[in-house]
């Protein structure tokens, strides 16, 4: 059992107008086997949290800590964080021209495990995972994300989740831009991995609809860089009915 602990995290970015604080004291603890949903209006800092955990250089941690079983995540480079077991399913996966999916997946798996995967099993695993996510077999020979539709890119993120088997998965608006069928397929992938009982999940979303397929244990409402309210799955239901308006009214500083 592992624990990812975020304590009183303050994060800023540098803009043309100077430094801008995005996260203003976020605390959150996720254990193996738990699914936490983070919901909130646009600009509330949800994606900043995801990118900060993964170590994107655009974000500066001003204070606070992130630890994984007590290890200081903030002291790790981007690749070290991944090898420690953190996985970020990106909101906008980039295209990497010239690098085939096959080559990329094998290179990443080798780096994550510290040794090359057994070729026979690996090929079989990749094929099976692709077919479960209804990704066409010829994608393996295509360049990473190149020319993929938005939905295809998201499926490929979940494909990596299933193949890399992280200790903690952070899904950054994986549901946005997906039609209902794709949403189901992607959710099934996350649930399959989650059911193995060795992963904690942080699900970041703007909408409640993905929560019909992926059941959260905890729901946190993000407003203006802080957690404004926390609760169980019933909080998501309330949000679906009421929207974010009552939070916006309570905190006039929110920028949409």
């Amino acid at each position, binding site marked *: 059992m592992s624990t990812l602990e975020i304590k009183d995290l303050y994060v800023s970015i540098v803009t043309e107008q100077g430094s801008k604080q995005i996260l203003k004291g976020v605390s959150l603890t996720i254990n193996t086997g738990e699914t936490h949903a983070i919901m909130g209006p646009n600009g509330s800092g949800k994606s900043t949290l995801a990118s900060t955990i993964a170590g994107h250089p655009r974000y500066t941690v001003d204070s606070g800590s992130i630890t994984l079983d007590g290890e200081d995540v903030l002291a790790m*480079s981007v690749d070290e964080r*991944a090898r420690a077991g953190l996985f*970020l399913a990106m909101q906008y996966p980039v295209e990497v*021209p010239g690098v085939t999916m096959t080559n*990329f997946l094998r290179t990443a798996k080798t780096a*994550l495990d510290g040794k090359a995967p057994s070729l026979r099993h690996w090929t079989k695993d990749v094929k099976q995972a692709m077919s479960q996510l209804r990704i066409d077999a010829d994608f393996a020979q295509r360049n990473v994300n190149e020319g993929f539709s938005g939905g295809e890119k998201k499926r490929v993120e979940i494909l990596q989740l299933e193949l890399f088997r992280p200790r903690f998965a952070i899904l950054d608006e994986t549901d946005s831009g997906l039609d209902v069928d794709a949403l189901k397929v992607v959710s099934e992938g996350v649930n399959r991995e989650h059911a193995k009982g060795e992963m904690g999940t942080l699900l970041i979303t703007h909408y409640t609809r993905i929560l019909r397929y992926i059941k959260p244990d905890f729901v946190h409402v993000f407003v203006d860089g802080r957690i404004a309210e926390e609760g169980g799955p019933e909080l998501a239901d309330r949000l679906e009915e009421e929207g974010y308006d009552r939070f916006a009214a309570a905190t006039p500083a929110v920028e949409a």
Partner: protein
Amino acid sequence: MAEATKMNHEASTTGPAGAAADEKARIGAPSSAPAAIAGFSEEGESLSELNTGSIQHGLKKHSHGNAPVVPEASRGERLKSYNLSDFAPLTGREEDWRFTPLNRLRGLHTEPLTGTGPSVQVSGASNIQVETVGGSDARIGSAATPEDRISAAAWAAADGATVVTIPANTVADAEVTVTVLGADKAPAAQHLIIEAGAFSTAVVVLDHSGSVTLAQNIEIVVGDGAQLTVVSVQEWDDDAVHVSSQQAKIGRDARFKHVVVSLGGDLVRLTPSSVFTAPGAEVEMYGLYFADAGQHLEQRLLVDHAVPNCKSRVTYKGALQGQGAHTVWVGDVLIRKEAEGTDTYEVNRNLLLTDGTRSDSVPNLEIETGLIEGAGHASATGRFDDEHLFYLMARGIPEQDARRLVVRGFLTEVIQQIRVPALEERLALALENELAAGNL
């Protein structure tokens, strides 16, 4: 009544591009020290009055500003002649020589080209013809006319030519390899002719290695309906100087693919051109160049759409690493008034891997008719894309491996176009060695 449009998007970039401002956002890019190649001004103009490459002269701005040079009004009007005396001695101010460090040509533009030159050996396919012919052979001049002084000098100095012929209606039973091996650094001339007969199919690899000071003319005749691929590989020794005109004449409904791979040599300057002579033909021109410290790799292309309904695609990609690595890409596309239905696109991409590198990229498009399918060009030069690096590193891949993966990915697109497995493998390995040499 010709409707003429001229587009020129010139860009010079020295590494690292715009690095200082976004220091924060970099994952592992080279340091942001100001970088330039000694002797080159920011405008990418001549090095000096004589293009000598000396630091003192080079810092002078607009060094050709006071020169009595009239720029050519159209690429199509450039002087073509078989007579050396028609071309004035080079000064470095000429539009087509302004990026070339003449002082490193080792006399190729001034001395008689009397060296023995590299040896030529042709191997591979058994159902083709290879001949060595004298200077009076009628095939000499069938596809090319010199467009610059060095090409004209080589034309005059070459003692005959090596002619590779793929007979009409013949599919070469293997790829043809023309091994050009240099062992002598005296300035020399060489003339090669590749003639693909009507409806023939072949792949011809020009494999350059060793040490030379070489002015080369290569004529390529692509017969009606022929499908010809010519790959020119420059894996010269570090001290080689190679100036090569590679002109192709494209017949009706022909398919021509030209691939340049320049890795070795001190100074390599290629001028590949494709001239359409009849409708329905398609040309693809690819290039890959990898310049290390001190290397000058230059390519100046021309695609001449002189007839209707032809299609051309140009893709050149380069990587640069080390102090003084310099690449030049100039892509001229000419769509003449008669060339209705033309479809053309050219693209150049450069990746600056370290400080101290410089890449010049100049796409030119001249359009004399509006009745075309499409015409476009693009050029981009930059450092590593930090978002690519982040994506790969976020999957556990260490920075150095991620960088290599990206560079490999960036350049192998061109290698994959060769479709000769053994050569593709060899070049992929050569690329790995380049990457390893740069500590990437």
